[in-house]
């Protein structure tokens, strides 16, 4: 399933920003010079004002749809009603990319309102691959799946996370949304090697990169945990890991995400400018060599 086919507004290998409700009006007013924008699919499932803004904004800016609630890792299967809601948004928005997470949120009919960690097992892998296949068939297009940020590991996990994600891409034919901040957060939380993680992902499958800020929180048990709260600037260590990712993957559409304490639009555009500078310096050849 190629992204180019039936894709009227492809996402360029440039820097984009996450579009949040706070910026709907200012984006229409100033028409910022940004290559593309991404929205959370779940925020546009009703009618009325939000979709009207998105209709107006997408007239001259490619849009990517990023889902946060499909729960690809649910043992009990996907919610057909939610799948249909996503399809309807996609039909209206005609997104250049569609993505979801390697995570789960729903069990026994309860939505737990977070991207929860999966045990990295063969059973989970089979479940996720089956669901990605189901989504791609339903949407009639390829999707990207994003590596999670996690705060705990399960005793029964047997597969390194990067191998799990590479296997999902290989088996289902989906692409990978490489969240560089998530790699950094999870690697710090679990003592992983960020370079080994990047090296484990197949460059040809990388369709998008996410960058965001995170926070550091001490826990009562004396440990420290990094929380992926998308509430601040991208930190220097993550920018550095992003350079490493670009060297390995070549130029890839890159998104600045910011969801809590959303700053003025100019701050997001400044972060995107920095990503654009690093993107421009990335060697496009690297990707074709690795992919061969």
């Amino acid at each position, binding site marked *: 399933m190629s992204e180019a086919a039936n894709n009227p507004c492809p996402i360029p290998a440039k820097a984009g920003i996450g579009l949040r409700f706070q910026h709907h009006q200012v984006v229409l007013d100033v028409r910022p010079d940004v290559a593309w924008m991404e929205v959370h699919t779940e925020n546009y499932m009703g009618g009325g004002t939000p979709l009207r803004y998105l209709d107006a904004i997408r007239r001259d800016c490619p849009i990517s749809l990023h889902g946060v609630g499909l729960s690809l890792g649910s043992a009990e299967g996907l919610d057909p009603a*939610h799948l249909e809601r996503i399809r309807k948004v996609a039909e209206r928005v005609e997104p250049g990319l569609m993505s979801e997470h390697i995570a789960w949120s729903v069990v026994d009919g309860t*939505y737990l309102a977070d991207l929860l960690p999966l045990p990295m097992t063969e059973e989970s892998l089979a479940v996720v691959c089956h669901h990605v296949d189901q989504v791609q068939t339903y949407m009639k297009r390829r999707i990207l799946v994003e590596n999670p940020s996690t705060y705990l590991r399960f005793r029964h996990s047997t597969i390194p996370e990067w191998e799990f994600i590479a296997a999902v891409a290989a088996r289902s034919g989906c692409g990978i949304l490489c969240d560089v901040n998530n790699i950094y957060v999870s690697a710090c939380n679990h003592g992983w090697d960020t370079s080994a993680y990047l090296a484990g992902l197949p460059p040809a499958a990388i369709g998008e990169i996410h960058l965001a800020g995170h926070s550091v929180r001490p826990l009562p048990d004396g440990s420290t945990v990094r929380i992926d709260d998308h509430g601040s600037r991208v930190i220097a260590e993550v920018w550095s890991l992003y350079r490493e990712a670009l060297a390995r993957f070549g130029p890839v559409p890159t998104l600045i995400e910011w969801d809590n304490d959303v700053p003025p639009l100019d701050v997001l555009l400044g972060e995107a400018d920095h990503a654009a500078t690093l993107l421009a310096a990335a060697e496009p050849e690297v990707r074709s060599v690795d992919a061969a």
Partner: protein
Amino acid sequence: MSTLLETQRAMRASLVGGDDRAAVAMLADGVGADRLNIYRNTMVTGVTKALRLTFPAVHRLVGADFFEGAAVRFIAQHPPRAAYLDDYGAEFPEFLRSFEPAAALVYLGDVARLEWAVGRALHAADVEPLDLKRLAALAPQDQARVCLVPHPSVGLLAADYPVDAIWRGVLDEDDAALAAVALDAGPVRLLVERRATGVEVSRLDEAAWCFATALFDGWSVEEAVAAAAGASAGTLLAEHLAAGRFVDFHLVPAKLGASFAATHKARP
């Protein structure tokens, strides 16, 4: 080894049920139970925020701390069922009505019901209003058999207190308007709808209310006119149609129309 479903049920018990035992037993060595709290906090914070966005006037009336306390209890009793959180909180008004700590605010449940209706109006699907030419093209004998299909953004609400005035005053932070609210002024009947400029809440008088509830419940136009004795039904219907409050219609079969009328005569 735990299955995926066992793992997910253990996490649910921890996050919603407050029982960490099964989840803790599944954590890798060196991973403390505190890590489960991170997910629990994210969930409660996220869902509470969704409630606050749907019930902003309730939030202001009771204050942030009280609201969060009520939300935690509510979420435990009625956790969300789908990731579409704009659609979450249908049971919150009823929950507040029987929430003992809020008993002094007798109108709180009704304000919440109004906010839920406002939320429904805000997020309802986009549907084109009924093309009035289709109605005009009907034979005269068929026009009385018309049952109209309401626009999904339109809602009707009867409340014991002047909740529209309270709701507006709270959101506008208009203390003078709030001071002028007379709680004993009697019930209000409201029509809530999404217009191009936003959600509007308007009051209906007794006759207009009877006519509107009949129409919106799917009675035929003829039946609705009969139910709203004393109303200038023709004018009211024209207003509803001009405002785009209906999206479609169907015709009650003539025979069914008679039996429908018979069974609905007792309706107040």
